[in-house]
């Protein structure tokens, strides 16, 4: 066992910190503790382009696609630094973490040429067309159809909760291309330009940040079959692989820890930090944050060693949600009604934690997976 960073990793962290100090605009408005860790902002494209120029945006990609083959640990360090500064890449972390890698693995040469370069330059936003009104945790129940019509697909259906859809140029869309096939067998991945006629985006106001939720309607939206990623009806395989990368675990414990430090500072200014009940609440949340950090590292270690997605990825996600909730609960307790003010630490953390247990696979689904894969209990 070894719980320290290597000199090389420390140097990489410094390099990212220094690059970010250069890249962030002087009036960078998002703090690490804002709601919705990865919102699109007017500045995020500029930051992503500047990081790209520094070689850091897609440093985890192989050199042939503009990266430097950075290790799993370097990716995690990069993500920690980004979250420390309010994730200035905005939604582009998705391109880097899983959409780009999925295109590298399953795309045609033409798709790689056309789609990967703009991502590597930091100039493009994608959204993820997965969830539907009747297909949430049960993703395979999705009903959006893409019917063959000569060399085209005609898409009809509805996606929902789609983050960044209002800003995105592309949608990584899951659609049913064989309505007769069994649930998981008839699904394909289509790369749909968001300016395709028949694609309509409507923002859904919510508690979790202005840009978080959208509904995307597809009404006879026509795309050439060349936008399909991988084989027809093989989309489930691609999604499984992509989600394994997505579930790597964003370092949300970084933000939770920073919120907690902020609340401790707030309590100190008001003379509350000497109260034993305040100390106990904050200490409990601090321990949860550190447990989450180590369990994310534990899962990353499996990935770094090429063992693929292990059940410890689910353990890590549960621990991260636990930590976010513990920090939210402690913050609300300590700040009381001051936490009702929009943008206050407790307000932001409460709303973040409400989404944390739902996005990219619910808390309960993670618990199911731990029960069957790690504890050997019967599948429900």
């Amino acid at each position, binding site marked *: 066992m070894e719980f320290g960073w290597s000199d090389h990793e420390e140097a990489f962290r410094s390099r990212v910190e220094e690059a970010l100090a250069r890249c962030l605009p002087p009036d960078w408005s998002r703090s690490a503790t804002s709601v919705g860790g990865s919102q699109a902002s007017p500045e995020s494209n500029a930051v992503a382009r500047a990081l790209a120029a520094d070689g850091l945006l897609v440093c985890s990609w192989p050199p042939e696609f503009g990266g430097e083959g950075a290790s799993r640990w370097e990716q995690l360090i990069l993500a920690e630094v980004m979250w420390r500064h309010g994730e200035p890449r905005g939604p582009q972390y998705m391109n880097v973490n899983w959409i780009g890698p999925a295109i590298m693995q399953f795309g045609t040469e033409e798709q790689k040429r056309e789609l990967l370069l703009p991502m590597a330059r930091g100039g493009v936003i994608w959204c993820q067309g997965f969830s539907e009104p009747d297909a949430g945790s049960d993703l395979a129940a999705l009903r959006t159809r893409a019917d063959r019509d000569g060399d085209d697909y005609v898409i009809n259906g509805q996606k929902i909760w789609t983050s960044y859809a209002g800003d995105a140029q592309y949608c990584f869309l899951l659609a049913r291309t064989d309505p007769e096939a069994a649930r998981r067998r008839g699904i394909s991945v289509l790369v749909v330009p968001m300016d395709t006629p028949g694609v309509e985006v409507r923002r859904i106001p919510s508690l979790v940040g202005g840009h978080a939720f959208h509904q995307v309607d597809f009404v006879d939206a026509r795309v050439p079959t060349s936008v399909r990623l991988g084989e027809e009806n093989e989309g489930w395989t691609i999604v499984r692989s992509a989600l394994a990368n997505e579930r790597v675990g964003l370092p949300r414990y970084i933000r939770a820890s920073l919120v907690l430090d902020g609340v401790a500072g707030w309590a100190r200014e008001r003379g509350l930090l000497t109260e034993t009940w305040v100390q106990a609440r904050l*200490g*409990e949340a601090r321990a949860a944050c550190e447990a989450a950090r180590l369990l994310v590292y534990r899962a990353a270690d499996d990935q770094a060693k090429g063992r693929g997605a292990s059940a410890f990825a689910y353990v890590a996600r549960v621990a991260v949600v636990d930590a976010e909730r513990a920090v939210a609960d402690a913050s609300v307790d300590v700040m009381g009604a001051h936490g009702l003010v929009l943008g206050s630490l407790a307000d932001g953390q409460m709303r973040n934690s409400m989404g944390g247990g739902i996005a990219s696979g619910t808390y309960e689904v*993670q618990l199911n997976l731990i029960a069957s894969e790690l504890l*050997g209990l*019967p599948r429900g």
Partner: protein
Amino acid sequence: MDFDLTETEQAVRDGIRAVLDRHAGVDRAREVEARSGYDAELEAALWDAGYLHMAHDPDAGMVAATMLVEEVAAAAGSVPIGTLALVLPALGLDDLRGPVAIARPDSDAPVRYASLPGHVLLVDDDEVAVHEMAPGAVVDSLWGYPFGRLVPGPCVLVLDGAGPSALAWWRLAVAAEIVGAAGAGLALTIDHLNHRMQFGRPLGALQSLQHRLAALRVRIEGSRWLTYRAAWEGAPDESVLVATAQAVGAGRTAVRELHQMSGAMGLTDEYDLHLWTTRIFSLAAELGGPPVLQQALARARWEVR
């Protein structure tokens, strides 16, 4: 970062398990419990095999010693393994053998092993005083250990300035013992739920139980790595308090949940679960319970005086 055991750590763990297979386990724990509650043979076997000297071995060190604490607790070994494997080596007290109790000097609460003849480490914020101990008054308790009231005899040694370090390793020892015992109790309970048929299916197929078991596993797993990390770092205050606060919280939940899921059978002496849960419950009370540790953590983290 590397979460795999090194070759040495792997060899040590295998070796420890071999010793524990012969000298510990639930049957042995019952035998010892029926007598003094202290397993001198197990202690001797661990000394003879060299496992209580590991802390000073540069290849093994405090991480391996922490692993030993966890393994002995998982095997329901009846020795103060945390004190023997972590606290004594950290203080350089390599010659002390036999029952060793550890307590705050002003403690009037029951102390583990204080009913037996041996030594006691009295740890205050500054120093550690080692006293001989005449057997103190036995305290009646069902909670897993021989408990006594502290009756320190003559002081044989005072270690100036060693208090903070002793307290840190004591806390870490408690965390490691809870992690080991809770892991073993969880494994027993999962096995039970996989075989216990009710309503025509194993109880373990019920999602209400699965979610609670999974959540408990997450808490134990987090405590385990926090404990190893704190040992690897040499037991700095904040890191130790994070591990101990988390482990004590997880331990409390484990006692409650594992007994609930084991039904009336789980409350019997005949069933093994209590061999771990009663000890977890005692360990979780020894340092004052979750709020006390959480407060101490907050004071360390945010430098509150």
